[in-house]
């Protein structure tokens, strides 16, 4: 009984697999959600780029050469929104539209978490 049930579960998993590949499940509304959240994430990206420009100009105004670690941190800070957005997009592949929106919302908060983490370490 339990063996048969396990086999049935395995077969359903097998059946679900192909549907999970690719972005074809997004559809028009799915992409609309993705674009909407792209604009929201652009807020974080803009902050990161502003920080990048600000740090570079500050260093140059003092005539100090920027070290590799500083470059890494500043670029990572600017890249966090892009990385998290891509991750949210990937995670959303297997989900429905409402769930994708939830993932993007969580990602939006996570961008702040990682950014503040980088600021704290820097």
């Amino acid at each position, binding site marked *: *009984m339990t*063996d048969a*049930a396990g086999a049935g*579960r395995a077969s359903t998993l097998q059946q679900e697999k192909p549907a999970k590949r690719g972005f074809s499940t997004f559809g028009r509304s799915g992409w609309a959600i993705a674009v909407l959240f792209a604009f929201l994430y652009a807020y974080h990206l803009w902050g990161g780029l502003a920080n990048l420009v600000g740090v570079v100009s500050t260093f140059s105004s003092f005539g100090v050469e920027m070290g590799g670690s500083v470059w890494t941190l500043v670029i990572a800070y600017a890249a966090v929104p892009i990385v998290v957005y891509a991750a949210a997009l990937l995670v959303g592949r297997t989900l429905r539209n409402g769930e994708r929106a939830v993932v993007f919302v969580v990602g939006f908060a996570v961008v*702040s978490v990682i950014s503040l983490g980088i600021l*704290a370490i820097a």
Partner: protein
Amino acid sequence: MSDRRDDDEALGWAGDDDPTLSPEGLPAREADAEQPTRLTDGLAAPAASTASTVPARPTVLDEAEDAEDRAAERELADAETAGAQLSSAALIGLGVLGGIYLLYTIGWIVSFSRYQTPITVDFSVVTYRIAQSLAVAASPLWFVSTLLLTQRRDARYRFLWLVIGVLVLVPWPFLMGF
């Protein structure tokens, strides 16, 4: 809490899923009764020589019944996974992870409250406060949405995503004293 294995035993007989048995007693007996006539049937002549040693070949009807059984079993398995109760280990694990998320949230709140507003408040201060507020919200958001989105999935995914969250949401500003 009842033993899961006992529940399963109550729902079936040992050897229930033996493929040589029909799901119900009556069709099996009918099939036995049919066999002699099938052996003497002229259409089954090529198989007749081996049929005495080999059990009856599955007919279209048998295959259809098997397919129905498999479909029913699959449905049952799906229903079981959907309605399965958490094991006590999973429950304790969820409690521990929930506690970690709670501590993270408190860490972010402490970091938020430690902030001292500078004398000149410009836009960067505002964005920093927004970021801090979002960071406070991130841990509970991650926890709740993980539970929501993995509801219909295997418990493994739930724990995988919760552990990823524990790694991602560490309140570094709090730990570094900011």
